[in-house]
């Protein structure tokens, strides 16, 4: 497979990060954000700070026309103000839509300084704070990309099928707001982004280049939030899943919390409504977020990082890699008590 050659270089700060969370990532992937912070602090020795007073970036509201643009900008200015007060210049956004929105707002302020002035006025009036634009603003997957080799060097597992010795075939899906709006803000640009490809290759796997790789998964708030449009949104994920099926991928990773949820959840929905299954041997394809994948290769316990909540069961993949885990502890709490089991979907073994 050819090397993905286009190297859009991007400045990624190397320490002293201000972390802003995603509204939804923890709902679907409960362990993801804490895991990311843990990896940065305890495995890579970085300083990561998250402010208890920080809020949503209002991306969901902005994209559904519920929140006016000035409000969104003022809330974002407040995030920057909190950053400034705590003495941080480098921001990490957990959600790709947040990252896209911060980029958009910064771009608008660049082209219309009077707008920035106006927002500074609103912020002062509403909260008494002043703000400064961050020196560096990146997405969480950029950080993992930057430290992919360091992670590889302390990794316990590799993305290799332990029986055959072959690298795992990994589909990487990049959230639309990551690089399609501002290609220069994404590692690798917008047509052939490198940010997740880099992780996969550094950790021993191989990427799958399939025809609908660049297609949106359908998680546009504007459409998805309204139930009558749900079918339209899901049909986009269906196009992707159908296109990747012949390549027999072992796993899918996505850096956007919405995309991960979509590609995970809709495999169930598509099976129930259409009987379609996209993995091998009648199984579904496990979907991971980038933090979860990092946690997996670093040897965190799968149930500690929340993999049991995935719609598509992950055990087959864990076995493929050779991860050590206790299957009996899947649906137990920290004290070891069973917390109830969901209705299990039959898994086939090849």
């Amino acid at each position: 497979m050819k090397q993905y050659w286009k190297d859009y270089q991007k400045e990624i700060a190397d320490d002293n990060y201000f972390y802003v969370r995603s509204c939804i990532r923890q709902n679907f992937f409960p362990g993801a954000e804490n895991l990311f912070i843990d990896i940065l602090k305890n495995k890579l020795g970085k300083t990561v700070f998250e402010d208890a007073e920080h809020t949503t970036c209002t991306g969901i509201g902005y994209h559904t026309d519920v929140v006016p643009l000035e409000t969104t900008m003022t809330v974002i200015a407040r995030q920057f103000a909190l950053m400034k007060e705590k003495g941080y210049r480098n921001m990490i956004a957990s959600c790709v839509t947040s990252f896209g929105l911060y980029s958009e707002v910064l771009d608008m302020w660049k082209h219309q300084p009077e707008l920035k002035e106006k927002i500074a006025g609103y912020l002062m009036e509403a909260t008494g704070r002043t703000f400064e634009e961050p020196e560096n603003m990146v997405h969480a997957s950029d950080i993992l990309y930057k430290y992919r080799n360091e992670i590889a060097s302390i990794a316990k597992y590799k993305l290799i099928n332990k029986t055959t010795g072959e690298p795992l075939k990994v589909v990487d899906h990049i959230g639309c707001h990551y690089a399609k709006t501002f290609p220069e803000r994404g590692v690798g640009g917008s047509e052939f982004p490198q940010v997740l490809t880099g992780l996969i290759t550094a950790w021993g796997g191989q990427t799958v280049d399939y025809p609908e790789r660049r297609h949106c998964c359908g998680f546009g708030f504007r459409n998805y939030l309204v139930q009558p449009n749900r079918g339209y949104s899901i049909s986009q994920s269906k196009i992707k899943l159908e296109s990747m099926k012949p390549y027999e991928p072992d796993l899918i990773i996505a850096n956007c919390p919405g995309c991960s949820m979509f590609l995970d959840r809709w495999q169930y929905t598509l099976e129930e409504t259409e009987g379609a299954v996209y993995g091998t041997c009648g199984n579904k394809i496990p979907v991971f977020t980038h933090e979860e994948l990092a946690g997996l290769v670093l040897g965190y316990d799968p149930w500690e990082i929340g993999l049991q909540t995935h719609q598509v069961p992950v055990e087959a993949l864990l076995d493929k890699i050779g991860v050590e885990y206790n299957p009996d502890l899947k649906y137990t709490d920290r004290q070891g008590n069973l917390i109830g089991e969901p209705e299990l979907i039959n898994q086939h073994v090849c």
Partner: protein
Amino acid sequence: MAGKRNFGFDIQGGGRQIDLDHADTSLASELKDAVNAWSACINCGSCAATCPSGQNGGLNFRKLHYQIRLELPTLQELSTLSSCLLCGKCQLVCPRGIPTRYLSIQIMQKTKHYVRENIPSV
């Protein structure tokens, strides 16, 4: 495996896309054999511009015969040709000199079964 459950929405397929990998061009081949010059059409729209049925009858002649070249149109789309008056104005104006009136007749003849049997005459 799983039954057909309904969650309250329909998942659509890619109905709008013209899939040239699987399109049915059998009608197009037959027409090309019958009307050699048809391949020289540049889609200028002169035929549709002058067509009386285009004004009142719902026929977009240019689009219809262009579509035939790509894929077989639906029954609905083909039936619009039934409002063609065979007046011959299109043939007078075609800059490529294509016998478009003859083309219209050929399309009607070759799709006779579809249209006559399924759509009442206009």
